[in-house]
Structure formats: structure tokens, C-alpha cells
């Protein structure tokens, strides 16, 4: 019987695109496409803002102080994230985990402060189709879409970092957070429904962690960092356009 002989070559594969690993290029491409999503939302917001002279300016001292602290939280989370990447590059696993947990803490603080801001605005009769300050219905729609999309990205980022930092140990924490959040929020609160993002995140994370278990390395930390910094970058445009351009003096 004839045997087919395959020639074995050491360099059978082409070198990777741009001389880096594929996960990183994939993340950069995703971020490029995601920047267009946020770009479209920001252009939509700005267009409506300019087209409506009676655009409401509901953000007083408290809201601006709150949003400034939120910005500081995100910027600080980017610093801890980049320190985590440095720790991962030198193979320091305990400090990589510590910096990632610090990043998650700042991200969670941002989300909680943002949720409080939303709750305050909703209590002031602001909805996606109307508000108490003016006859411009687009304000609520564009505000909730833009900031909601960003809040979703931050939440996904926290779950992503949790998976990288704690792997399977993060799953029970996530399930408990979802359950506590769901039971603690009143049934008429928007976050009573929104908290299910954590449940979906826990299920997706469980599928990934059980079907493809691995010890996440420095490359994975760096790719997660790219996503996190992007979320920070987007907020650098949302904060001035949405909050600072609508201040109430």
C-alpha cells in the first residue's frame, strides 16, 4: 500500500499580520468598528443638540460633580489597567490580579455612580421620549441610548476583566452580584431589568470558561486592557458633549 508522505516544514505558516498576535489584531479591528457605533451615536446626539435651541440643560452642580468623579474613576481605572499589563509582562501574577481587581473596582464605582445619575433623572420625569425641562423629546432618547450603550460596555468590561483575573472563581461572585442586585432594586426601577446583563454575562463566561479553560497569559491581559482603555476613551467624548455642554448654572 502506498503511503502519502507530507513534507514537514518549519516555517509552514505565514508570519502574522503586522508582526503581532492575532488576538490583538482582532481586538483592534473590533475597537475600530465599535468606535464607529459610538461615533454615529455621538454625531446623532450632537446633531439634535445643535438643531434644537431649546435643548434642556438639566445638569447642575451635583450632576457635574458626579460626572467629574465618574471621569476620574475611569481615568484611574486606565492607570491601574496599564500597571496590570506591566505586571503581566514581567510575569508577576499576584500583582496582575491585584491591578485587575483595582480596575474592576473603579469600573464598578463608575457604573454605580452612573446608575445613581440615571435614577435621579428618571425621578425628575425624564424618559426616552420626554422630559420635564423642555419640549425637546430627543434629549431623553439620545441621552439614554448613548450613556446606556457606554454603561453596557463598562459592565461587559468588568466581567471580561473578572474572567481574566479570577477565572472560574469569578462565576459564583457574578451570580451572587446578579441575585443581590435583582433582589435589592425595586421592581419599578430600570436597573431591576438591567441587572440581568450580569446573569447573561455569567452564563456566557461559564460557557467560555468550561468549554475552553486556559491559564490567561500576558497577551490576554493586554488584549483585555485594549478593550478597557477604549471604554475610557469613549467617555472622554461623552462627558464634554453630553454633560458639559448642558450645564445648568
Amino acid at each position, binding site marked *: 500500500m502506498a503511503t502519502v508522505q507530507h513534507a514537514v516544514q518549519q516555517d509552514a505558516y505565514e508570519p502574522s499580520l503586522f508582526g503581532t498576535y492575532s488576538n490583538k489584531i482582532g481586538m483592534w479591528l473590533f475597537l475600530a468598528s465599535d468606535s464607529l457605533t459610538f461615533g454615529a451615536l455621538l454625531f446623532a446626539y450632537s*446633531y439634535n443638540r*445643535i438643531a434644537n435651541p431649546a435643548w434642556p440643560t438639566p445638569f447642575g452642580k451635583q450632576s*457635574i460633580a458626579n460626572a467629574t468623579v465618574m471621569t476620574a474613576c475611569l481615568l484611574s481605572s*486606565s492607570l491601574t489597567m496599564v500597571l496590570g499589563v*506591566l505586571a503581566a509582562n514581567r510575569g508577576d501574577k499576584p500583582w496582575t490580579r491585584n491591578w485587575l481587581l483595582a480596575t474592576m473596582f473603579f469600573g464598578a464605582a463608575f457604573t454605580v455612580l452612573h446608575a445613581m445619575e440615571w435614577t435621579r433623572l428618571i425621578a425628575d420625569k425624564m424618559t426616552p421620549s420626554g422630559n420635564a425641562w423642555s419640549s425637546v423629546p430627543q434629549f431623553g432618547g439620545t441621552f439614554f441610548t448613548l450613556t446606556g450603550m457606554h454603561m453596557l460596555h463598562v459592565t461587559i468590561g468588568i466581567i471580561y476583566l473578572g474572567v481574566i483575573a479570577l477565572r472560574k472563581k469569578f462565576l459564583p461572585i457574578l451570580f451572587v452580584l446578579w441575585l443581590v442586585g435583582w433582589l435589592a432594586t425595586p421592581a419599578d426601577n430600570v436597573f431591576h431589568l438591567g441587572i440581568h446583563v450580569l446573569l447573561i454575562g455569567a452564563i456566557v463566561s461559564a460557557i467560555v470558561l468550561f468549554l475552553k479553560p486556559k491559564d490567561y497569559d500576558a497577551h490576554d491581559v493586554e488584549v483585555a486592557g485594549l478593550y478597557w482603555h477604549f471604554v475610557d*476613551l469613549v467617555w472622554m467624548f461623552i462627558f464634554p*458633549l453630553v454633560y458639559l455642554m448642558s450645564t445648568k*448654572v
Partner: protein
Amino acid sequence: MHDVTATHAERKGIYFWVWAGLIFLTGVEVVLAYKRVLEPVHMLEVLLVLSVIKAALITLYFMHLNSEVRAMRWLLTISVTACFVLMWLFFFPDAWRIVHLGVK
């Protein structure tokens, strides 16, 4: 000899400086907006310029785009910028008309 520890320490220092710069620029934005130093249209221009500077700092230093291969750096920058220019081309004529002629 290349001293890895020294390089890490130097890079760490840069990250703290970038973070401090970003916090400072955020403070400038808040003061400008809250004191209403400029007219809304000029304010928008100034805030957008500051935001672009902040975004560039984050991309170049925190996301390490400045240490990527030159081809990747330029491909990403040019493609994303081109898409934003296309969006701006749709937005600009209306925005210009509204700012200079008012809304009817």
C-alpha cells in the same frame, strides 16, 4: 546592557504623568464649561479639541499604539479617521446652516 527593571520604572513614570495630564485636562474642561467662558459653538470646538488630545494620549500611551508596527499604527488611524470624516461630511452642511442661519 538593556536594564528591564529600569525600563519598567521609566514606563511606569510616564503612565503616571499621562494620568495626571488627563485629570488636569478634565479639570480644565469642567472649569471652562461651568464658568461658561466661551459661547456654546466655540465651547464645543474647545471641548472637542481637548477631547481629541485626551483620546490621543490614551491611545498612544495606555493602548501602546505608539509602540506598534508603523503599518498597523497608520492603517488603524487612517481608516477610523476616514470613517469619521465621512460622518462629518454628512453632518457639517446642516450644522453650518443651523449655526449661521438659525433653525426654522
